[in-house]
């Protein structure tokens, strides 16, 4: 089947049938340590469907060249696909224009891009508001900016149930606030933040809003115009796409006003030794040869994801989450971390007397992949008085039965450790 045919098929509505979904992900049929793979670490990185793997392979085998350069068929063809992937992302986020879609190497780079460019407009005493549940990638860039500019970094604390109450965020936003940078969905707790209301509160004082959408794009429908956010960042590899590519959405007028991020090829219109002029959006922010094939792979991943009835897909994910919370919550000595109602996709927990790393090692021997550690959110761990949790996260291919396997393996781990 050609890629074109695959793309055509992808447009046909497809019912969400978990068995056929799982069959699309080749890795899910393998064994680890002689046990069927139970992959519960999709929040760290998701597995890839055959449709994405095929596209990556097809490009390298049949249609590979650099983009935006060659006046020859191969280059023109791949340039077309690279830009088509941008349009796919635009539609996925419902951005107004593909000029607002910048490809980066990941969400981390997308946030750093905003800190390094938009951030230059901040000065001494200007405030950046984040929350206590942020990933390090939405903390450290602002600390670096704070140290460069004298801006103030304000942190809205997380409530014990994992929520960040809207009124606390609103209270932290003042006339001095220039940027509110928050996760749309917490990677550790799964908490969904009220980002539309946060954007309203920020805009009321003239501040801009950046949303770290890494977890949200996977489990929510994201409409950047409806949210009215100014920046939105996500990575492809958590969205069933390849790694090495991410996206920064930015409102066009903001991107236009921002200085370039990196200098190099592709981001200029003319270069002389005296001065250079920048390329139009979004090329202005894409210096150097971009992750070409990964971008095409991201487009394929979005096509795959959106080929399903999204309500049915999200309902499945939510049912698996509820079942997992129930099963794990029933285990003696196990404490769920992050239990507020507005939650999706991730279950963090600790088990009394058993360190998360010991649990992860033991679970691995049962073929179960979970994340153990601080999840790149050390301040959040500190707030809970923990150094680490175990996190089991849900992907579109995850089943309730896999949480039964996890619960049984945890009981066995208790026998070994306690």
């Amino acid at each position: 089947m050609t890629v074109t045919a695959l793309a055509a098929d992808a447009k046909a509505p497809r019912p969400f049938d978990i068995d056929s979904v799982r069959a699309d992900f080749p890795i899910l049929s393998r064994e680890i340590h002689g046990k069927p793979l139970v992959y519960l670490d999709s929040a760290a990185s998701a597995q890839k469907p055959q449709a994405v793997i095929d596209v990556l392979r097809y490009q390298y085998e049949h249609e590979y060249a650099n983009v935006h350069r060659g006046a020859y068929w191969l280059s023109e063809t791949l340039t077309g696909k690279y830009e088509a992937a941008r349009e796919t992302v635009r539609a996925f986020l419902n951005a107004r224009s593909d000029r607002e879609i910048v490809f980066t190497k990941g969400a981390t780079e997308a946030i750093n891009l905003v800190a390094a460019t938009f951030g230059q407009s901040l000065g001494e005493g200007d405030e950046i508001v984040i929350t206590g549940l942020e990933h390090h990638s939405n903390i450290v860039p602002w600390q670096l900016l704070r140290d460069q500019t004298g801006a103030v970094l304000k942190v809205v604390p997380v409530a014990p149930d994992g929520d960040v109450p809207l009124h606390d965020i609103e209270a932290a936003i003042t006339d001095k606030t220039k940027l509110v940078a928050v996760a749309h969905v917490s990677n550790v707790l799964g908490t969904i933040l009220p980002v539309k209301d946060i954007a309203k509160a920020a805009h009321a004082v003239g501040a801009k809003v950046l949303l770290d959408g890494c977890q949200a794009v996977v489990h929510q429908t994201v409409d950047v115009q409806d949210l009215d956010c100014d920046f939105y960042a996500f990575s492809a590899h958590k969205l069933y796409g390849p790694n090495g590519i991410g996206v920064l959405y930015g409102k066009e007028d903001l991107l236009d006003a921002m200085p370039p991020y990196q200098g190099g090829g592709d981001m200029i219109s003319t270069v002389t030794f005296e001065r250079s002029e920048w390329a139009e959006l979004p090329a202005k922010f894409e210096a150097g040869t971009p992750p070409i094939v990964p971008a095409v792979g991201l487009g394929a991943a979005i096509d795959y994801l959106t080929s399903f009835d999204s309500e049915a897909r999200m309902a499945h994910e939510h049912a698996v989450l509820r079942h997992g919370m129930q099963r794990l919550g029933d285990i003696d000595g196990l404490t769920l971390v992050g239990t507020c109602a507005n939650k999706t996709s991730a279950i963090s927990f600790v088990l009394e007397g058993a360190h998360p790393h010991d649990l992860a090692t033991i679970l691995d021997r049962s073929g179960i992949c979970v994340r153990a550690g601080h999840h790149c959110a050390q301040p959040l761990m500190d707030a809970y008085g923990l150094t680490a949790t175990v996190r089991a996260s849900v992907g579109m291919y995850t089943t309730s039965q896999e949480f039964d396997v996890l619960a049984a393996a945890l009981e066995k781990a208790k026998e070994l450790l306690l």
Partner: protein
Amino acid sequence: MMAQEQERGPDQGADLLSLYQEIILDHGKSPRNAGAVEHHTCKSDGKNPMCGDKVCVTAAVDDSGAITDIRFDGKGCAISIASASMMTEAVKGLTAEDAAKVFAGVRTLCTEEVEPDQVRAELGPELGGRIDRLVALSGVRQFPVRVKCATLPWHTLMACLEGRDSATSERSSAAQKSA
């Protein structure tokens, strides 16, 4: 590597039992020499950046260079706590130089397919007996990502004895192996 692991077959329980031996679980749950040496002459904080685990080693070293007292404080997994606990027992009375030799032996046990007797022989008659219990740590060999858990307390001890106030599981002395 994954294929090789898979080929190891259904015997996946055995290496877990060798990792979580009785003595490891015992020291992990009831660590010896926990806390801080009140009149310490050196102190160092160690951390494993990958997992956020922390250990603080305090020691008192007398004029002859011998470790007269050593304690540790920390949060960590069963492997790192057991390793720290057994370490404090193993190095008490040793000089920094001899403690480093014992650590070298422990690291060999944790990373290489060697017989404990060979490590004992290399350490010689005086130090060889110091690793008797530490042999239990060799179960981490089958779990490469956990080797750092076992070696973190030792890196921290080395830093402590060398007068450095911090150590990480990433940093080792000259002989940087996979640990």
